[in-house]
């Protein structure tokens, strides 16, 4: 897969919508191409900014409701003829009303000013805001499910994009013998800490990362050109994996010694 093909898929890759071989090819290319890696980093940055901008502010919403309640209870001293109700600007962060035309048209509102809104203009009832809130909620849910979906792995986003360190307790292992089923699930063998990673690298700008297939549960899996690691379980210490650029050799690094990986 070349840079052009990769760049066309970066957005969907970032959103976790690519699967199987396509996902692995994009991930491998990004792992080996500095330009595409930078592009992906830019995507991540932009996505973070957007997500932050759309993030609902619970405190602000609570204060709005307090304002609404107080206004409902208070005697109405002014009737503007369209049955509106009053919200004190002091308790209304302007930022979250940017979508409301009546407020957006008054950017110079200061604390203490009173803003009158038509009932249908209350931001929480506007389709645009509902849509945005829904999108933000869906995005949050999607991210939460995508990032934390594998409860067995117990790893967060940081584990995907930072040097991988998985710590487990030292314990006896059933061992490799004919009776020990290689497909044994980690739940059946609690002595071995399962690892399930999406992307492993040593250092932020480390050597080409081994791309891990999350489809195989109960262990870290990795694939290079001539090596596919279907599962890795370790009983103690730290672990990292990476592969040489040719894909001929993959490394499974355990223990606390510095791997001195080639960068």
């Amino acid at each position, binding site marked *: 897969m070349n840079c052009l093909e990769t760049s066309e898929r970066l957005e969907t890759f970032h959103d976790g919508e690519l699967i199987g071989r396509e996902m692995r090819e994009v991930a491998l290319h990004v792992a080996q191409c500095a330009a595409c890696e930078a592009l992906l980093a830019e995507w991540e940055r932009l996505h973070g900014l957007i997500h932050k901008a759309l993030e609902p502010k619970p405190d602000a919403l609570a204060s709005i409701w307090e304002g609404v309640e107080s206004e409902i209870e208070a005697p109405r001293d002014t009737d503007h003829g369209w049955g509106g109700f009053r919200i004190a600007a002091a308790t209304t962060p302007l930022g979250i009303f940017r979508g409301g035309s009546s407020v957006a048209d008054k950017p110079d509102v200061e604390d203490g000013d009173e803003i009158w809104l038509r009932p249908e203009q209350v931001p929480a009832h506007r389709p645009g805001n509902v849509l945005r809130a829904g999108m933000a909620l869906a995005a949050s849910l999607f991210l939460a499910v995508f990032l934390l979906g594998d409860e067995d792995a117990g790893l967060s986003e940081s584990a995907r994009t930072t040097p991988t360190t998985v710590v487990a307790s*030292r*314990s*006896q*292992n059933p*061992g*490799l*013998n*004919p009776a020990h089923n*290689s497909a044994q699930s980690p739940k059946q063998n609690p002595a*071995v800490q399962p690892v399930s990673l999406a992307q492993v690298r040593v250092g932020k700008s480390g*050597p080409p990362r081994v791309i891990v297939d999350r489809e195989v549960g109960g*262990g870290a899996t990795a694939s*290079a*050109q*001539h*090596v*596919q*690691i*279907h*599962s*890795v*379980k*370790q*009983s*103690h*210490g730290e*672990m990292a994996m*990476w592969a*040489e*650029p*040719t894909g*001929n*050799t*993959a*490394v*499974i*690094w*355990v*223990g*606390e*010694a510095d*791997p*001195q*990986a*080639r*960068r």
Partner: protein
Amino acid sequence: MTEIQSKTTTLLATCFVLLATLATAEEAEVGAGAKAAEEGPAVQVEVGTVLASNKVKRVDQRLAGQGMQARLTRLFRYQSYELVSQEAQQIPMGQPSRFDLPADLELRVRAERIVDSNQVELRVELLEKEVTMVDTALTLGQQGRVVLGGRNHQGGVLLVWVGARPSRARVQPHAPDGSPATHRDQALMPATAVQE
């Protein structure tokens, strides 16, 4: 009465001979089939151990011959790579095989199956005093090798590489004494390093 007894005896004898013949033929057939089944496909597994450190700048010349020098220097930044041990075994499919490594380490390898005629699916377990350090299932292509590293040893770290390929030889799963039948091509080699 005597005639009847005689005919009965003859009939029983004939039946006995017939049954004996059938049993012998079946046994021979089963034996041949079992022998054919026992001589299953084998996998050539090669395991090497390298001591990597930064004490001096030197690379064991034998690593170049193994094609490991380039691989290791592409993967690591150590100054010195010394081949400590190397062993190759032909192991039957599904049979665990053991490789003794330095520093009380032990590698257990089991060939699970051959994929696409040239890739080998393995189960590899690295143990230290009966405690599993790594337990992994992987598939190695003809050029593929996996390195298990990280164990501190003599001022450096041990790098254990594993390579495998389908073997043309077919070996019996069990030796006559019941122990796993493996063919060891090469055992612990004396390490002679050369200055680069």
